[in-house]
């Protein structure tokens, strides 16, 4: 009961704290929509091919585009409150439908990349901390410096050259074999084959970040008194590394992984255009090419909301993991 109450309290405080940020993001989105060249009436008239001055004016008043800015802002917020992000004449579909169709692919890509980068990054970081100052540490440090400086979309293209063009092991792009009606495990394996290269390209820079972070926090945790006590008790080095050092070193890494959600989303935009994955990023790219600002700004808004939700989840997770954070608030 008590933990439930503290969780409720933490959730309430976080939501309250998030409110000004939310409002600010909505305002910026509205501002950008106003700044975008051409309004919805122009776009629709352009799509239909024939428009007179009168029909344009009629369209404008139909969409409320001839109203004052505050009225338009009110309409915009009102529409958002009803999950209405606008209409894309190009796709002939509502923006929220377009986004929800593609969200799954992007989230799958991101989660795979996050999982991969955490596993590899923490493993490399542990190796670096274990041999710190000696050659495995130096070699891995150089590698992580390289990973950190490589453009993700370029490494994606190079992986295509090696694994798809030269070796022919993996597909060059897409989300699954077209026309195949696979079920169960074969279907999962098929989509994993398509996700392997994109997820690795997206994960590379985060592998470098988590490896460095794990190394630093393992070295810090390893110098603590309780580790010396554990060693004095005669525990084996493996038990000390995994049960005492790694557990305490993981906390800062969960914080960072939460913070990286927004960055990973941005990375996914570029990676999806490389591998023609039908996700949010590919949709953003198509929207840019078609100058469909409604769709583009809808994606910006939804992805900002996703970041806010992730932040709240990470906050709650940490309050659950670490009693000290709970009492500090």
């Amino acid at each position, binding site marked *: 009961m008590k933990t439930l109450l503290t969780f409720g309290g933490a959730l309430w405080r976080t939501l309250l704290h998030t409110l*000004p*940020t939310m409002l*600010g*993001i909505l305002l*910026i989105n509205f501002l*950008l929509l106003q*700044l*975008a*060249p051409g309004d919805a009436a122009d776009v629709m008239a352009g799509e239909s091919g024939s428009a007179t001055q009168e029909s344009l004016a009629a369209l404008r008043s139909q969409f409320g585009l001839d109203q004052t800015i505050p009225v338009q802002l009110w309409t915009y917020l009102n529409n958002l409150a009803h999950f209405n992000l606008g209409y894309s004449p190009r796709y002939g579909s509502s923006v929220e439908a377009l986004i929800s169709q593609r969200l799954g692919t992007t989230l799958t890509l991101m989660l795979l990349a996050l999982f991969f980068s955490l596993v590899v990054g923490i493993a490399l970081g542990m190796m670096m901390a274990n041999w*710190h*100052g000696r050659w495995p540490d130096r070699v891995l440090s150089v590698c992580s*410096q*390289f990973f*950190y*400086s*490589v*453009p*993700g*979309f*370029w490494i994606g*293209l*190079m992986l*295509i*050259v090696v694994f798809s*063009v030269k070796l022919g092991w993996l597909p060059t792009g897409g989300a699954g074999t077209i026309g195949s009606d696979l079920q169960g495990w074969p279907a999962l394996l098929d989509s994993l084959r398509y996700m392997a290269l994109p997820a690795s390209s997206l994960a590379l820079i985060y592998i470098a970040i988590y490896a460095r972070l794990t190394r*630093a926090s393992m*070295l810090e945790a390893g110098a603590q008194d309780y580790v010396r006590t554990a060693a004095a008790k005669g525990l084996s080095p493996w038990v000390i590394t995994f049960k005492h050092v790694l557990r305490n070193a993981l906390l800062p890494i969960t914080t960072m992984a939460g913070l990286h959600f*927004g*960055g990973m*989303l*941005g*990375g996914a*935009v*570029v990676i999806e*255009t490389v591998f023609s994955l039908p996700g949010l990023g590919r949709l*953003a*790219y198509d929207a*840019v*090419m078609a*100058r469909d*600002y409604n769709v*583009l*700004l809808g*994606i*910006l808004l939804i*992805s*900002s909301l996703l*970041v*806010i939700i992730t*932040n709240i989840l990470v906050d709650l997770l940490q309050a659950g993991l670490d009693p000290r954070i709970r009492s500090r608030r």
Partner: protein
Amino acid sequence: MSASRSQALRRFLRNRTALGGLIFLIAIVLLALTAPLFYPGDPLGMEADALLWPGQDWHYPLGTDALGRDVMAGVVHGGRVSLQVGILASLFGVSLGLAIGAAAGYFGGRIDYLLQRLIEIFQTMPSFVLLVALVAIAQPSVPTLIFAIGIISWPTVARLVRAEVRSIREREYILAARSVGYTHVRIILREVLPNILPTLIVTASIMVASAVLMESALSFMGLGDPNQVSWGSMIGSGREQIRTAWYLTAIPGLAIFLTVLAFNLIGDGLTDAFNPTQAQGRK
């Protein structure tokens, strides 16, 4: 103060990897600056037979692309755009972050609260998605790229500067300056700024690295300046021939990688040079 600065400089120059990064960077900058001398004419102009492989014809050491454009000329001219955008965007971002962070940290109170909310808004919106939206709406060109990359990168600097300014705001020499009646702007520029300069320099060099990466990703997606060749746009157009002529994608990408690596190595070297005790602890 200046003694410790020259010590920091000496420590930096003794750091071999950082020095390597610096030398490589100087070479790239020289190449970019002399591009109009050695490669006059439009790098987007057609020069020779299409799709010559690197080394096939020594007039075109890095080969030619599908339209017969010299890849070497493209790399050299593209470096001009990438470096220009990277450096100017970081300068803009650092100045903006400095102004906002210093104001928030120095004045505190309501101003601090409002500016912190602003920082939070920009840190919550996925920065690359925001960048794409900004550039698409403002129409791509070199000045727009500089402006947009600056706009999304200031919050990091602002947070750093705010924290540093808060920590030194109540020191005696600041109080002394305030009691003498110096203006806020003068105190911030003359008393506060020199103390946070090392942090700013390190942040700026890492910011240039990420600005170069962002510029290349944007122009790869076709959101670069359409009238200028850049490393990202070379990859974007070389990608069409990735099955047959993968060198068109590989070469400009290597240029981006090495330049970004150079800025990151310099940033790491500067961090170690400014904080020798921390560097000892890390090793």
